[in-house]
């Protein structure tokens, strides 16, 4: 009996130990799955899947970045000389164009378009400045006079340095994360600028001035503020703040980065207040009393002794607040207007990383470049928040060490 009990005890202990690892395992799984999907992006071809770009064999240009391809097909680049080639006008040729040059009979329509690849080959071979965007199944078999552009992969440079996010562009989707990254940082930092004075003031009020009754009123209010779902904040922002901002600043649309910052500021308040208040409450009694005994007023004690003492706690509050704002999805998605442009003014629509993921993942086919790019965005977001959490941890640890 005793032996049996000991075995049960051991088993239970084993299970508890295993469950202790659950958060670690979860984080590991998140990292593995996020990066497994995300890193696939850099193995994806720069051109849409199932298609290839062909040029005339005499053309010396043999590699193009996704952005250059886009510019060519947008008529922003019109001469090969701009790409380091010969001085030759670029002639765009899309697959459909073949049907205006040849009749169905000439292409072998009744015979599954058997002659189509040859005709495509002829077209490309006959024109020195041509760039043709063709489906792989109809690529010219006889490559005389035709050269396929080397199938480039999307590079980290394209992804992190690219200034355009147009995942549905043909022939080359644009996955430049710069506008999204800057948009995210922009709304978050402005949100903290709005939230910090308010949050810090309330934290000082709560820790130094408020009596027990006021605290009992304010604390639950702040908890509630933290408990309201982000989609409700988003809805509130959409129906109240968006029209308000639009009217107050005379803008064409109210969905701006600034509107997002205001909502994010409200959402970050509870974090900032709680962390900063904790830090200030931890000021040793002896320090306050020494200051007061030297003749300082309560206010002087607060801003000369308590706030400097709680400096690292307050910094941790700021960092955590930024972290909260950077990761926020729904509210931002609903009020910022979601235009993927690099933000230049306060009052223009912008788009953040989480909002992009939320808005686009549903329509990105699993395993495709777009899907992978969104996971890569997730990786970036994950790394940013990880750095933020570790920083906050390190800062508040400094405070504890000082306290000893």
């Amino acid at each position, binding site marked *: 009996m005793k032996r049996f*009990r000991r075995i*049960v*005890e051991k088993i239970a*202990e084993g*299970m*508890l*130990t295993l*469950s*202790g*690892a*659950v*958060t670690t395992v*979860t984080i590991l*799984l*998140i990292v593995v*799955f*996020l990066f497994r*999907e995300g890193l696939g992006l850099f193995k994806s071809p720069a051109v849409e899947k199932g298609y290839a770009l062909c040029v005339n064999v005499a053309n010396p240009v043999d590699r193009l970045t996704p952005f250059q391809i886009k510019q060519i097909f947008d008529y922003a680049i019109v001469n090969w000389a701009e790409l380091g080639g010969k001085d030759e006008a670029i002639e765009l040729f899309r697959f459909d164009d073949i049907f205006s040059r040849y009749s169905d009979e000439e292409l072998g329509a009744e015979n599954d378009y058997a002659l189509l690849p040859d005709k495509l080959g002829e077209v490309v071979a006959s024109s020195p400045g041509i760039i043709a965007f063709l489906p792989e199944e109809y690529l010219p078999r006889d490559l005389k006079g035709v050269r396929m552009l080397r199938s480039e992969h999307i590079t980290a440079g394209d992804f992190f340095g690219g200034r355009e996010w147009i995942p549905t562009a043909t022939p080359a989707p644009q996955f430049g994360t710069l506008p999204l990254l800057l948009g995210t940082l922009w709304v978050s930092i402005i949100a903290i600028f709005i939230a910090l004075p*308010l949050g810090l*003031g*309330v934290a000082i*009020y709560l820790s130094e*001035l408020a009596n027990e009754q006021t605290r009992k009123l*304010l604390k639950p*209010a702040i908890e*509630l*503020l933290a*408990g*309201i*779902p*982000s*989609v*409700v*904040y*988003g*809805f*509130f922002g*959409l*129906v109240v703040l968006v029209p308000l901002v639009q009217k107050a600043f005379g803008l064409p649309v109210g969905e701006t980065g600034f509107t997002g910052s205001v909502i994010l500021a*409200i959402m970050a308040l509870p974090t900032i*207040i709680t962390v900063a208040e904790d830090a200030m409450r931890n000021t040793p009694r002896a320090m306050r009393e020494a200051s007061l005994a030297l003749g300082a*007023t*309560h*206010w*002087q004690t607060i801003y000369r002794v308590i706030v400097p003492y709680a400096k690292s706690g307050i910094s941790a509050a700021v960092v*955590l607040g930024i972290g909260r704002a*950077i990761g*926020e*999805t*729904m509210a931002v998605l*609903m009020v910022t207007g979601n235009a993927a442009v690099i933000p230049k003014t306060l009052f223009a629509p912008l788009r953040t990383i*989480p909002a992009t*993921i939320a808005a686009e*993942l549903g329509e990105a086919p*699993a395993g495709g470049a777009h899907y992978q790019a969104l996971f890569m965005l*997730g990786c970036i*977001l994950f790394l940013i*928040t990880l750095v933020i*959490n570790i920083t906050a*941890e390190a800062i508040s640890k400094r405070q504890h060490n000082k306290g000893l």
Partner: protein
Amino acid sequence: MSKHTGQNIAFWIFRLLGLIVVGILLWILGFIIWNGIGVIDWEFLTEAPTDGMTGGGIFPAIVGTCCLILGSMIVAFPIGVMSAIYTTEYAGNGRVVRFIRIMTDNLGGIPSIIFGLFGMSLFVNTLGWGDSILAGSFTLGLLVLPLVIRTTEEALKAIPDSFRTGSLALGATKLQTIRRVVLPMAFPNIVTGLILSIGRVSGETAPILFTVAAYFLPKLPTGIFDQVMALPYHLYVIATSGTDLESARPIAYGTALVLIVIVLIMNILASILRRYFGKKVKTN
């Protein structure tokens, strides 16, 4: 005298800031309640959406959110409590615990959209569960895991060591002590954590976007592999992407109000529990 004038001005500013924060809360709550209260009636709570989601009720979304709450709690609660028991009762205070705690904190700091991505990749695609209650519950369960663990840890730590040593001195084993002494005493506070987790889960949107939530699905789920509608996602959809946004507005206000009421109830319940049992432990 002047230093007191400065103090007075500063203190009035702080009081004002406190008022502003309460004001913001009241503004948001008041706005939603004011506009939503007229929409709520029995039909709204018990009927499926009609007329391209501009009429009818939100019953399927309420049922869906309940399914997700139940599912995610089944996923997160047992393992979360066990994990907390391990870190507070077994693991001591060494490196391992510190590492686990850092991991738990970091998991808690990961944005919810990342959980959505992860859930989609692992549960929906790799494990092949598809968009389902199962996938959504696991995603949400992992999301609230840190909250469950942290609140349970605090509940366990609040039990004075004398109870443990007393039980051990009477010859009880460690497991018996935990089961018969520590857990029953910590139970109310653990339940408080559970309630807070429910409040959190019921409002999360980003993690369910790609793991379970259906745009429109009037029939109720019949199994764990079914998709469901959910309140937060429903609010997002009818607020931003319906066919007729203006006529869907009342439904949106109603949905927002239901969501807020759930969160309010959970918060109030938690604070009542905390206050009531907090006193009881002290008088013991």
